[in-house]
Each structure stands twice: as C-alpha cells, then as structure tokens.
C-alpha cells in the first residue's frame, strides 16, 4: 500500500510537469508561428530599404538592390530592435573627433549648417572637409582615409548617431529649437569632450517632454507625431 501511494504521488507531478512544459512549448511555437507567418511575416524578408530618420533623408541602405521600397524595417531582427527601441552606437568610417575640431574654434553650425534653417542638422560633404584638410594634418591616417574617399569622388559613409525609427513617426525640427535658445549640448551632450560622436543622451520621449513642460512649449501629440 505504502509503495503504491508513494508511486502515485511521485509520478503524477512528473507527468503533469511534462504536460505543462509541453503545453508551454506548444504555446511558444504557436506564438512564434503567429509572428513569423502572420501579420509580421513581411518583416521576415530582408528587404534592403531606406530608413528615414525623422524629417531627414539620411538613412541606411543595403548593397543588394531590391526593386521594392517599404518604409518599415528591413528584417525581422531589425523590427525586434525597433520594437524595443534599441539604438546602438554606430561605427564610423573615419574616427572623426569633435573634441579637436571644437577646440580649434569650429562652431557646430559650420558643419551642421541646416540646424538653424530647417528640420535637419545635416552633415557636411567631404568637399567641405577638404577645404581645410587639403593642407591641415594631411599626415594623419584618418585624413588619408578622408582624402582617399574624396579622390574617388565618394562621401565617407557616415552613420547616423541620433535617429528615430520610422514607427515612432517623429518629426523633429531643429530650427525652432535653436531659435528658442536650446543649446546643442542639451540634447547631444558635451561634444567638446567626445571624439567620435556617441549617443550620450538617451533621447526618450520623456526627455523631450520634461523640457517642453518646463519651457511651456506644446505637449500636444501632433506637435511631433504626425
């Protein structure tokens, strides 16, 4: 009797546990199948696409030219990243150092000329860089890289450091912020201490709203999301 009782007690939980694990696995497979084959199946395909930063037209492009452009994420992994708003610091083709340039008296606006005029700060063309670097510091390996691009008629493939995913539907306008007296360092950190630009501030919506509320600027949704 004792043996039977003990047997019953010990086997039931083990079988139930297996059933539970099996059920969880089934549900997980089902969820996975839903995501992969259901509404998100388009995201499985690796569409090499353009991705727009808010208001700007600088974006990532893939070498394989697909005949299709969609505005959303090129691959499933990218869409997962977008969902969690993961933004990593990119690798730049040339180790451009803000510290050195700012120390030598260059203003932000000199290179990012669009910042007082419109939505995008913009990046300077290699032609602009070469205006000085034809003669300045030409022995440096970074400048040699720059010159190589210039001589090939190409722009260095700068990677955006601050951008919004298309699904955030953010239209950020630099010019009104500059005109309202917001310093570059407020959102982009103190670049006089940075070499290659990194995301020194986490530009979440909360970050924006805090300042907007303090300054009495509009916190209406469609001020930024339209």
């Amino acid at each position, binding site marked *: 009797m004792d043996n039977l009782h003990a047997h019953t007690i010990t086997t039931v939980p083990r079988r139930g546990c297996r059933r539970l694990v099996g059920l969880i696995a089934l549900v997980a497979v089902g969820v996975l199948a839903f995501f992969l084959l259901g509404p998100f199946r388009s995201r499985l395909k690796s569409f090499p696409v*353009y991705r727009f930063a808010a208001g*700007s*037209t600088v974006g990532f492009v893939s*070498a394989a030219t697909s005949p299709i452009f969609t505005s959303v994420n090129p691959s499933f992994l990218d869409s997962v990243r977008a969902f969690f708003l993961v933004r*990593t610091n990119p690798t730049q083709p040339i180790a451009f150092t803000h510290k050195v340039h700012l120390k030598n008296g260059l203003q932000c606006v000199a290179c990012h000329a669009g910042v007082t005029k419109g939505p995008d700060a913009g990046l300077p063309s290699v032609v602009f860089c070469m205006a000085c670097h034809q003669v300045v510091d030409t022995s440096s390996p970074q400048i040699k890289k720059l010159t190589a691009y210039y001589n090939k008629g*190409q722009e260095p493939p700068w990677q955006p450091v601050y951008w919004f995913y298309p699904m955030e539907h953010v239209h950020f306008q630099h010019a009104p912020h500059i005109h309202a007296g917001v310093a570059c360092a407020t959102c982009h950190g103190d670049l006089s201490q940075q070499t290659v630009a990194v995301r020194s501030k986490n530009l979440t919506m909360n970050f924006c709203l805090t300042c907007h509320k303090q300054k009495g600027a509009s916190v209406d949704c469609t001020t930024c999301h339209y």
Partner: protein
Amino acid sequence: MKRRDFLRLSALGGAAVPLGGCGKRAATQLIRFIPKENLIPGIAVWKPGVCNQCAAGCGLQVRIMEGNAEVVENGQLGIMLMGLAKKLEGSPQHPVNQGKLCVRGQAGLQVTYNPDRIQQPLQRVGARGSAQFAPISWDEALQTLATQLRPLAVAPAAAGLAFLTAPLHGQRGVLIERFLSAFPGAQLVPFELFDDNVLRRANALSFGYDQLPSFDLAHANWVISFGADFLGTWNSPVAQSLGYGAMRQSRSGVRGKFVAVEPRTSQTGANADEWIPAHPGTEGTLALGFAHVILAEHLGNAAAAGTAGARLAGWDQGLPDYTPEAVAWQTGVPPATITRLAREMATTSPALALVGGAPLAHTNGLFTALAVNALNALLGSVGKPGGLYFTPPLPAAFPQPGGSPAAGAAPVVALAQRILAGQSPRLLLLDQVNPVFATPPLWRVRHALEQIPFIASFSNFLDETTSLADLILPDHSSLESWVAEIPESGTAEAVVSLAPPAVLPLHNTRAMPDVLLALAQRLGGRSAAALPWKSFDAMLQADLAPLRSHASSVAATSADDFWKNVTAQGGWWAATPPAPPRLPANPGPPAQPQAPQFDGAATDFPFYFLPYASQQFFDGRFANLPWMQELPDVITTGMWTCWVEINPQTAAKLQIAQGDLLEVASQHGTLRAPAVIVPGLAPDVLAMPVGQGHDQYGRYAQGRGVNPLQILAPQVEPATGSLAWGATRVKLTRVRAGQGELILYSGGPTELSKQRFSR
C-alpha cells in the same frame, strides 16, 4: 530544476542576440557619391517648370527636396544625395493655369520616378517586336544613328528619313524642323489620336484662325457645350475650369447657366444644368436648329454672323431645312426643348457655344463645327467678353514651328500606305508617339512600321511602337529637361512657357533635343549648319532674344538678365496684338446638311460605339502611372480595369447585370469587357474609356483591360483625314456573369446616396 534553468537561460540568451545588434552594417552599404548640388536637408526649394502631360502648356512650381537616390556613375552603382521632385503645383503667375493644376498634371511626378523608364540606350537583340534589347553606351548609340543618318543627308533621293512625332508645339518642334531641313525629302509625320484638326479647319473657314479657340467663361452667362469635355480632357482644361468656377459663383447674384449636349454623361456634362442627349453625330444639325429659331423669331440677325454664317447652305434664307420638327426628328431632341433653349441663349447675353471631342469625330465633323461656329457668330460671342477668342500670336521675330501645329491621323495613315505600297523610308525616328496603340488595326500601322529598315526611338518608355525600334536613345523626363511650350489656347496673352530642368537626370538618359544637336555636329555639313548650337538651352536663349524688345512681364537690363528672369519666372508672356484673320482663299461651297455616316448597318449593329478620352489615361499614355490606375473613374469609379458603359433600360432588356462580361463586336473586331450600368447614357450607345489594353508599356499598364480602338472602323473626316472615332457601330452579346473583372471603388456609405443638407 535543471530543465527549467536551461529553458530560462536559453530564452534570455536567445532574446539577447537580436537586441545586441552590431555596428557592422557599414560594410554592406552602397558607396555614396559626392553630391552635385548644394541643398539644405529638409528644406524645400521651389523651381519653375512646364507641365508636359498635355499640350495646354501650364506653368508649374516643382517642390525640390534633398534625398538619396540610387544612380550609376561611371559604371558604378551608388547613392547620390540629389534634389528630388516631391510635389507639383501650378505656378500662380502663369497666365494659363494661374496656380492650379489638373489631375494628370499632378501625376507627372510618377513619370520621372517610374520603375519602367528606359535607363540607358538600348539596341535590339531579338526579332523586331520581341522587345528584347541590350544596353549600349551613348557613344555607340550616337555612332550607330549617325551612320544611318549620314547617307540620307547627302542622297538626293526623297523619302529617306521620316520623323514620327507628336504635333509640333514650341521650340522642340522648331528644333525638329531645323534638323529635318538638312535631309532632302525628309517626311515630318505628326500624329495625335484626339486631335482637334476638324475644329481648327472650321475656325479657319469661319473666322480666319487655323487655331483652337479660347473661352472667356468667367464672364459668360449662358454656355452650351456640344460634346466638349472642357472641364476634363479637352483643349485647355485648367484654364477652362478656372473660368467655369468663376462663371458659376464669382459674381454676386449672377450665375451662368450651362447646358451639355452629349449622348453620354461625361465628367464635364455631369455639371450641366440641362443635359441633352442628341443622337451621335447630329450635334451640328441641332446647332442649326437653334439658329433657325433665333433667326425665325428675329432674336438675331443672319448678316451679323458674317463669314461663319455664310459657310452654311441656306443661312441667308433662315435655314429652312432646320425647323424644330425636322431637327427633332434627326436629333431626338423634342421641338419644344429646341425652341426654348434657342430663345434662352439668344436673350441671355453673353452666350457661348463650345464644340469638341466626339461630335467632331464623325464623317460630318466639319459640318458640325461650322454649324456651331455659325451659332456663336449669331450669338455675337466671337471676340467679345464672355465669348470665344483666339490667343494672340507671339511676335513674328520669335521662331515657331511652321505650318499647322497638328495633323491628326492623316499623315501616319499616308505613311503606312506609302510603306505598304513599297515606298518605305530608310530610317524612322520616333518621338513621343504611340500610333501602334492609338490607331485602328485596319490602318496596318504596325505592319507598315515593321517594314522600315531601321527605326530609332527617343522614347523613355517601352511602349508598343518603341518596341519595334532597333535603337533606343531614351529622353529625359520633362522635369529633367529644358521645356518650352507655346500654348495655343487658354490665355488672352501670348505665352512661351519655358523652364530649365528642375532635377538632375536620374538615369543614363539624354535630352532628345541635345541628342539631335550632337548628331548634327557629328554629321557636319548642312546638318551642323542648320543646328549650330551646343545645347538646347543655347538655342532657346537665342530664339527668345528677340522677345526682349517687346514690353512684357519680364524686366531686363541686359540679354543675360532677360534670360535669367524668363527662366526664373517659368516663361515669357505679354499682351500682344491679335493676329488679323486669314480666311482661306478657296473655302469651297457652303456646307449642305450632312448626316453622319457609320460603319456597320444599324440592323446588324444596333449600338453607337463611343470610345472616349479617359480622365486618367487620356489616349493611353498615362496607363503606366499607378496613381492613374488606382484613381476611381469619375463616372463609374472603376480602377485598374476597363468596362463597357450601358444604359439601365438597355441592360434590363438584355438581362445584363453590373459586372457581367460583355462581348462588343464591330465589323472589324471584337473585344470583351465587364458592364457598368450608367443612367446618364443614351439607350443605343455603348461607351468605353480609352487607355487600357496595352501589351507593352510597363508593369502597371501591360496586360490590363482592352483597347477599344482595336475594333474601330478606319473612318475619317474627309476634309482633314482625322480619325472619326465616333463613327463605328457595334453589337452586343452577354458572355457570362462577372468574375471579378470589374473593380469599382466602393466609396461612401449608402446613407449619403441622397443629398441631405441642413443648416
């Protein structure tokens, strides 16, 4: 538990992998070329342009913003930051469109950025017509064409070179004429499906102006249109729409009345206060019926109609053949209506009559046009406020294409006949035309063109005609080109619409005028002498220089300044003196009453067939634009498809339901398309939009619908040789119930089907 720990760890680990991300994306990116332009990102720049979608010559403002485009530079694929055209708007100061733009003008962006554009020169590799081409360099292409052209420039034999192109307007036409002048016996073959040559001829006979009319609708109080889709596809639609809106509601307490005479409710006719469905081809008779009443009741003076009246037999006698009863019998319009409308138009001033489109596409088209012209003259609308007038000419010192600006179908028919009789030109150049699509098969245009030894095309799309070419030298799109158009109508000022390219070329294409200039230089001799300019804009600048001395909207302190201001404004315009009327020396006898002739006996073919210029495709040229394919048709809401319009009573009698597949047969062909029930359609008329049924022309147009022109009889209007596309009769059979061939835009809830307004 070990298993659970394992599961937990692997789940977390697995999730971390995609979230980690790598910055290695740089390695897979395309190279970026140094931009050629200096634009500020995110800021729009507005540049002047000229709309090339129809011949109205409206002025544009093109919104340019910086963007990344994939381009090929020196054989390498890469990204270039360049100015991209984002939106087209009408230019506010342009006299023709005054800041407005029509539906086809707005769609012009999709021509430049169309995926099916030809992107580099091509040489035929397969059999002719198989549409198999291989890319070649521009050098090779120019060399090949120059080699073909050279013997034709020196040979004294005639008919070596033929140039098949759209009707010559503006400086592109001037350039083509100059180019051809170096080739003895070269044939210029202008072609247009929906030409208005019958009206031009009538205007020459009635008023002394071989030109399309303009209308002061804004000041008119009573307007009658005989079949002219003047708010949609006909003549100068934007200028006419501007005038129409003003006619209706811009004058306090005054609202102009609009009457439409047509067997099918067109987009324009739907706006009419009264809609009169006269039998097809009897519109001229109806116009003279009105004139008869006006003369009989002494509401107008026969002599006041002058030459225009004299062109009609019986005018001076008060048009005895056109009593209301006689006219009612021919046209199907009740005598009481004829009398009432005649009295209204004669006593409401200014009154104006328009005629165009289907009524002129009959064997008696010229008679109809002369009749309406006479009616206008009787109403006193010619050259008066609220009436019709003719756009004044540009100063004589400004070079323009010689001869008649358009020549419809007759030249291409004549060309085809010559070729089939054994007299083929050695070389055919094609530019901006598609006669293989837009002519009835019985004219054997395709068969004829296939006999020509060498065909070179400048088209930037592979349409049916260009697919027969041996060599393709693709043109830029109009936004990438210097464009100079001279509006024939729609403005009270003389206008040259002129604009530089708004965007850099996206593909390895070259402006056709520049290609002709380069060829001329290569050929040397008379060719080079006829075209001494390095580029098209150099020629434009030279041609425009004489205009500087005329008072205009363009102030200039120097020739360069003048050119700068003209190009910045989008053209040159000025009030110039109207041209003196030039009546033809031998106008022929006055026109006798003429009934329209139809192909097909009424017993066997009980329906009139009406293929009409569609809003979205016009004559088929816009079928490759996705916006136009998805635009719900104005009358039927059809998209991505074509259809046969049928009257509800007729449908009920033949037991045809909406969407059923119908077979329409003329004496010369059959086609099948789904039925759409249209209440505003005469019971004995079947109508179809023109534009679908391409077998080439890109992914959006190809293999979609049917081309109603394929079953047309080769009837012509005898005086001008224009295709009488309204002169075919057909019979109808129901094939089966619909299986989804018809796609309608289901817009609006059913509650809104009745107009319910309240304050």
